[in-house]
């Protein structure tokens, strides 16, 4: 895999091929693992970090999981390339901003990402389109077994997999589902969903995880607790609750159409109109309008645009991607112009007038 070509393609998980992908953008499972014989990355000196990277890098290259994995040494990348990997959800912000030797193994389809020397020695992630947690678990469980076959993980009989932060120990699992909930946001019903989720110990975060704002009406639902319950139990908790949120969002969408179809049609068409014609646009406004358009497509109010294109635009209109596509460093105002031009171009390819 070549980092330069990444900016022009998109991950399989954005293609809206999975179940319920009108609302569920993606399902993700990550596992935190550490090698038994080394200090955790933040406490490891340069020699130890290099040794950890060597061991895990060669193990990642050795395993066969049915997908081709490429290893990218993140510590050798420029800031812009690292930022692009963050925008694509292939590495975390912490991994991008960290110091010292570190890297990531990525599958061609971008479904698998194996971060080395993040907060833990190894942070594995499997990402699938739509509501597909069982598939994520089956795949990540296999990868975990393959890596562990020749390495000894830090593991305690009582506390399970040992992690740098006590909030992750035990299973080391974070199960999360990324939902697009525009109707619940418009009607402010989303607050009730948050409260219900908090009661059963689930966390709600924005598109880019911890501390990030809910952009484009995307919400990430994930487990908090990692110790004392099995992986399957934790996955099931999320699997049980998501269908309720999906039917809630769908019910509210139907009610919105019933109440004021013309008003809603007008709103999503205006959003589409701005995106097709704007000459300068901020990231925030883009997210907001794309969210409207995405819902419009799902309600049949916009019929000449496809969901995967919108999904891609959420990622490709972010700062590092725009700069990679344009092959130059851009200040914020220049980015807004480049963003508007990129969106016009992408959307023009689909308009009937151009066909």
């Amino acid at each position, binding site marked *: 895999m070549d980092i330069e070509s990444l900016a022009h393609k998109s991950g399989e998980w954005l293609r809206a091929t999975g179940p319920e992908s009108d609302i569920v953008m993606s399902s993700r499972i990550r596992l935190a693992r550490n090698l038994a014989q080394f200090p955790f990355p933040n406490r490891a000196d340069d020699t130890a970090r290099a040794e950890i990277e060597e061991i895990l890098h060669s193990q990642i290259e050795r395993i066969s999981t049915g997908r081709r994995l490429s290893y990218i040494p993140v510590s050798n990348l420029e800031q812009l390339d690292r930022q692009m990997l963050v925008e694509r959800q292939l590495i975390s912000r912490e991994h991008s901003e960290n110091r010292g030797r570190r890297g990531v193994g990525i599958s061609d389809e971008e479904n698998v990402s194996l971060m080395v020397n993040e907060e833990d020695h190894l942070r594995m992630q499997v990402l699938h389109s739509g509501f597909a947690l069982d598939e994520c678990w089956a795949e990540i469980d296999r990868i975990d077994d393959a890596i562990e076959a020749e390495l000894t993980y830090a593991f*305690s009989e009582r506390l399970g*997999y040992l992690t740098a932060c006590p909030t992750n120990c035990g299973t080391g699992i974070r199960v999360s589902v990324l939902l697009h909930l525009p109707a619940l946001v418009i009607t402010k019903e989303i607050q009730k969903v948050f409260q219900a989720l908090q009661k059963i110990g689930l*966390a709600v975060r924005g598109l880019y995880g911890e501390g990030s704002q809910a952009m484009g009406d995307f919400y990430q639902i994930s487990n908090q607790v990692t110790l004392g319950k099995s992986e399957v139990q934790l996955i099931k908790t999320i699997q049980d609750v998501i269908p309720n949120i999906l039917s809630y969002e769908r019910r509210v969408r139907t009610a919105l159409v019933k109440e004021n179809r013309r008003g809603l049609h007008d709103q999503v068409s205006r959003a589409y109109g701005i995106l097709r014609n704007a000459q300068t646009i901020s990231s925030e406004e883009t997210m907001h309008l794309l969210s409207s358009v995405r819902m419009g497509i799902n309600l049949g109010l916009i019929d000449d645009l496809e969901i995967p294109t919108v999904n891609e635009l959420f990622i490709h209109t972010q700062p590092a991607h725009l700069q990679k596509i344009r092959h130059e460093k851009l200040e914020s105002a220049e980015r807004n112009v480049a963003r508007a031009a990129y969106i016009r171009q992408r959307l023009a390819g689909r308009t009937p007038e151009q066909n």
Partner: protein
Amino acid sequence: MKYEPEIVHRLAVVMKKCGRCSKPAVLHITELQHGEVQALHLCETCAKEYLSQAPSAPPEEMPASIEAESEEDLDELDQRVCPNCGITFKEFRAQGRLGCPHDYIAFEDELLPLLENIHGETEHCGKIPKRAPDSSQRQFQLIKLRSELRTAVEEERYEDAARIRDAIRQVETMPAHEGPTVE
């Protein structure tokens, strides 16, 4: 906004009222003070105020002798060092990150209440490395089955419960060298 961890700051786990006013708490802070775990539930406004204050400044009206004593205790606890990686408990308190896997043993007394507070449990019941010795494989199998049994009984799935009970008996009576198969 991003809060830096004192020990572990966690976004809303359960809906609770703020401990200082009546707004809903959004930040749940677990802190080790004087060797005791303290849970704080704060709304956004109070949380900002709390986090901007110097960590655990003793109230002024506190009698001097007690103050001195607790500070000594805290110092003693803080100065504990992991013999493996050299991290002190104080450093962990400041960063919220441990130094090495051995810390879980070195700081066990302090970490167990913290883990209990975070997870509500202190016993792993999930996947175990295939390389773990047979005896621990069996031990984990039992912990997992017992936890499943609890859930089955709670959910009134009595047929499942009976099946799990049989499985537990089978693992318990299995000769040691045979080691149970792990899913």
